[in-house]
């Protein structure tokens, strides 16, 4: 099979999740860097792939697709990846879908809300800190983390059950973004900590590789630590 054309930037949480899935499943891909800091998402070539101008996006032959979660669901089906990633059984799949849908407004709403306001808008774009937005995002993050601790990874090794699934990839990449500003989601939550360590251990070298860009970016841009809990 020919390679997937993957458009993204590894400073982006969902881009990392897509790459992790492809690497873990040996799905061949060509990486096309879309440098968001240089406005490359508005370039005509990329607009042809994703008129919405967002990353991640893929092109599989003549088929273009955006939205990280939809991309990974597509790849899991196309490449018939091992069942645990996105189970076929209706109830097991529903358990993963439950998380995948909840993710957007809750994990991502909270975590990206904090990161976007504190780092992108304030530190990088030099806008004044929007304390109201940051406070609201931290509130969402707290609720999300409590639900992780008391439900999603309370009696399960991974979000989908005993093995890693696509939900774990999207969740963990939101939390590793927060690591760059000194927010350790596992600090006060033992189940979350154990799960996060388990996910990174499972993904091994792919996990390390996927995070090089954001770690270097955090260092060179000198991200300030953000207080949380």
């Amino acid at each position, binding site marked *: 099979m020919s390679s997937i054309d993957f458009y993204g930037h590894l400073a982006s949480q969902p881009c990392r999740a897509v790459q992790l899935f492809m690497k873990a499943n040996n799905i061949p891909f060509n990486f096309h860097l879309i440098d968001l800091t240089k406005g490359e998402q508005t370039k005509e070539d990329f607009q042809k792939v994703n*008129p*919405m101008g967002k990353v991640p996006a893929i092109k599989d032959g003549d*088929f273009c*697709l*955006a*939205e*990280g*979660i*939809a*991309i990974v*669901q*597509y790849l899991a*089906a*196309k490449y018939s990846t091992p069942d645990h990633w996105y189970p076929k059984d*209706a*109830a097991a*799949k*529903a*358990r993963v*879908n*439950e998380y*995948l*849908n*909840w993710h*957007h*407004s809750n994990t*991502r*709403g909270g975590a990206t809300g904090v990161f976007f306001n504190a780092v992108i808008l304030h530190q990088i774009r030099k806008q004044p800190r929007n304390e109201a937005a940051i406070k609201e995002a931290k509130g969402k993050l707290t609720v999300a983390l409590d*639900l992780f601790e*008391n*439900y999603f990874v309370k009696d399960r090794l991974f979000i989908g059950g005993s093995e890693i699934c696509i939900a774990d990839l999207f969740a963990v990449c939101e939390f590793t973004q927060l690591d760059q500003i000194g927010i350790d989601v596992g600090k006060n939550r033992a189940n979350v900590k154990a799960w996060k360590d388990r996910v990174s251990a499972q993904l091994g070298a792919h996990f390390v590789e996927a995070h090089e860009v954001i770690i270097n970016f955090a260092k060179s841009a000198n991200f300030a630590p953000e207080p949380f809990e």
Partner: protein
Amino acid sequence: MGKINLHANRFSQPARSVELFLKVNNIPYEFHPIDVPKGDNRTESFLKINPTGTVPALVDDEFSLFESVAMIQYLAKKYSTPDHWYPKEIRARARINEYLAWHHFNTRTNGATGYFIALFIKPRYLKIEVSDEEVQEAKEKFEKMLDAFESYYLKGTEFISSNTMSIADIMALNELTQLVAIGIEPGKDRPKIADWYERCKQALQPHFDDVHTDIFSLRK
């Protein structure tokens, strides 16, 4: 197969979506009303089936689930509903999944639901004052969302990313009917959206009227 238990109320956009899907596919279900102002969603028994305390929740025998999209995806599979609702072919399915992922933050939080919160939930229900700036900001985000919805998801197709109706359309429709209920017509000045809205509404009758009696009573 036993009945599906749907714990919901018809003021909730996602709850209406699940109920519409059950009705239009003749899936037997029992409706358990959850009155949020009364705190039905905060009882110990409800939190056992849905630890987020949100509406809707679905219980199928011993199996409980939250998130309306996950429920509909589950029902489509379990009851082998007609393929157009959630096509099996991987590219067609990907197009629907693409919308469903975009829906949560865009159509909903940063779009229609955000606007509904500014116009109705905060002032009329929570009795929180809302500034003109806040309403204007919510309105602009809503309009921007409709621009994107129209230009991308309805580009050259009768329904979202397809010429056949899917669960994506049901989810989107119910976000917009919430605003119709308080006198905001998303199809005003947007004929493509107006046509799509009517097309979806007709495809779901008489169930559309059934599930909308509560929310449309706000119009009076």
